């Protein structure tokens, strides 16, 4: 099993926590995994990209058009990192928008990219946890059930990572995110060999 996952967002919004949860979920499921964190200027409101590779890889880097999954925690960062995604890849995007500009729509159809738009900020805000949009997006991702990132595995990893004080609320946001995407029907993810 191999997954190349891109987590993209802006500094201070939990991108690194999300990618850490993904790599730990893979490792506790007995898989080999490696991640790459961007540091340095990331706390200054700049773009943050964290790459996670599950499977027999040596480096934590992802080549252009090689990524399987793109988790965009901010809409503009989706556009900035879209070049990572391979044909037939999966993208989850935190946005209030209900669609894309037509040129992007055409591109995504042409490349067979499956997209799920999730108002993760809205879900988190409704639970009184504005900073937890990352959990909502992870919840939506869990609804796809791509092994090893099932709801159960991700919830257990969140339990081990998130401080007790915020845990119940975070899990509630995660569950809302799961339901938001789950209602849209199962999507078959095309698996293409690298």
């Amino acid at each position, binding site marked *: 099993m191999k997954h190349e996952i891109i987590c993209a967002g802006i500094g201070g919004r939990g991108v690194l926590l999300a990618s850490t949860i993904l790599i730990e979920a893979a490792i506790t499921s007995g898989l080999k*995994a490696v991640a790459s964190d961007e540091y340095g200027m990331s706390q200054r*409101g700049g773009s943050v990209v964290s790459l996670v590779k599950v499977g027999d890889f*040596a480096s934590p880097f992802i080549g*252009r058009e*090689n990524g399987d999954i793109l988790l965009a925690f901010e809409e503009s960062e989706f556009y900035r990192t879209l070049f990572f995604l391979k044909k037939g890849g999966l993208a989850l995007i935190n946005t209030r928008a209900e669609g894309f500009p037509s040129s992007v729509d055409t591109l995504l159809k042409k490349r067979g990219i499956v997209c799920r738009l999730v108002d993760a900020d809205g879900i988190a805000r409704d639970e009184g946890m504005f900073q937890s949009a990352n959990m909502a997006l992870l919840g939506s991702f869990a609804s796809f059930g791509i092994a090893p990132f099932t709801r159960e595995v991700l919830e257990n990893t969140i339990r081990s990572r998130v401080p007790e004080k915020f845990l119940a609320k975070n899990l509630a946001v995660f569950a809302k995110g799961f339901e938001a995407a789950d209602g849209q029907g199962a999507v078959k993810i095309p698996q293409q060999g690298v």
Partner: protein
Amino acid sequence: MQSREEVVIGNQAIARGLVEAGLEIAAAYPGTPSSEILPGVVYFKKMEDVKIHTEWSTNELCAFEVAFGAAAYSGARAACFMKQVGLNVAFPALLRSREKTIEGGLVIVSCDDPGPQSSQTEQDTRLIAALFGIPVFDPASPTEAADVAYYALNWSFENKVPVIIRSTHRVSHARESISLYSPGARKVSLQEGHLAGTGRKLGIVASGMSYSLVYDVIEELGAADVVSLYKVLKVYPPSEALSDFVRSVDRVLVVEETDRVIEALIGDDKKVMGRSDGTVPSSGEITYDIVRDMLSGVLGRLGLARKDLFAPDGTIEEALSDVAVIPRPPKLCPGCPHRASFFAMQYLWPDAIYPGDIGCYTLGISQGAVDTCLDMGAGVTMAEGFYDAFNQDGKLVPILASVGDSTFLHACLAPLYDAVKNRKRFILVLMDNSTTAMTGMQPTPQTGVTVDGVKTRSVAIEDIVKGLGVKYLKIVDPYDVPLMIGTIREAFDYLKGDEMLPAVIIARRQCLLLTKGAAKEAEYPVDIERDCIGCKSCLATFDCPAMSFDEGLKKIRIDDSICTNCGICYYACPVQVKGKALRKLKGLVKQGAK
């Protein structure tokens, strides 16, 4: 005996290896990408309940000499950690140390920053090590970094010479699961040699993260049966096996970051492709795409390509060309006290000379209040040079140098004393936010807390400034913008007097990441957009990430989710009461100066 697995970043893995190897003394100065090693040592020494002295040093030279002293004459197992430009600061001691026979063990970890991403320059630690004959390892992953750290400290102890571990930010900040062993029990497997591929026409030699990258790209290109891959772990001294490998293949491609080191050590210009002949880009980080393009090209030229070369789908960029993507250059955080200081400096004298320094506040460049960035401490000494250049022509122009508190203590004591001794007239704005913010909030000597979290004596910056002989010293809250502007004006008047000394203003307010909360200066949300006339002057002079210009409404928009309600932007707005008052004040102080 293996105890368990833990997911760590490369820097923590290095710390783990050293702790398991019986480390006794560790000293460091923080600098991206090395900053997490010392806290990693603290974390693991507590986990294992072992006694290790750990300290944040005032600069890298101090860190090196503390570790060397302990290792050289006291027989301790010691280590020091720094970033690549920090090694320059420790350079005098490093060069001398290699000639000494140390009694204990000494490991120097120097983390390079290819790109550079968070440094003023790229620099290859391996080159310095190879030039001056110091053994150097270049691990390719966190897992290997833990093993190398363990091995290197033991090797240094047995051979009585210092050893350098070179990491890069991609190793230091990669995250993976490593095995934790009991102290002294690590099973080390160091891998160097011909590890992958069977082809003889092209041999690839790589080290560090470049090796890991090449390994993955060979897999993607399905090229394992047409190339051979040799991994270098100990860059200097090079092993005999490397020469044998080079002899055994027709051509050699060397992939390494960031300088020509292995390439130069192989030294066969006819056979070797790399940076010398332009096959590898001459600077910048080596990315996956660069390796894929480069290797595809070389395989194509040698007639070895197995698959169609990767061709990027250009329609991605075409489709996105009309989509407005918010640019996100690095900026000071919303509510940052530095932004308020820079605003005041720039507001009074847009055309002053602004020597800058290294830290978060280098970003003052976007507010037009930082002109230079040479190395730590240079802000003060370059201000001296600017003063001399104008003074010689009989001119006294406003020169406003800026430096943060940690950098001041790291590198500016001698420069400021030099300025006092040589009677230089400029204003130094010492931006004191009580922490080393850029590298992850490490304490400064002023904080009075050790890396272990224990309270210690704190050093007051104002006492040091006075002790160096400065007579004009004011401490101002940078959020009080009118007072900042008035004080800068007053300081310039002082420079025109008889004393002939630099003036120092300490702009003191805690970093918002330290206070972990809103500035709470304004009790209600900032509503600058309400009266906005769309002039955009705040964007140019204030440059806050919470501000953006709404092209539809032709007004400034404030992002409530990141705005800290500091309210300083009101000063930057020509229609707000505060902004209008500031204009009057500027007129008054300029008039008063005539």
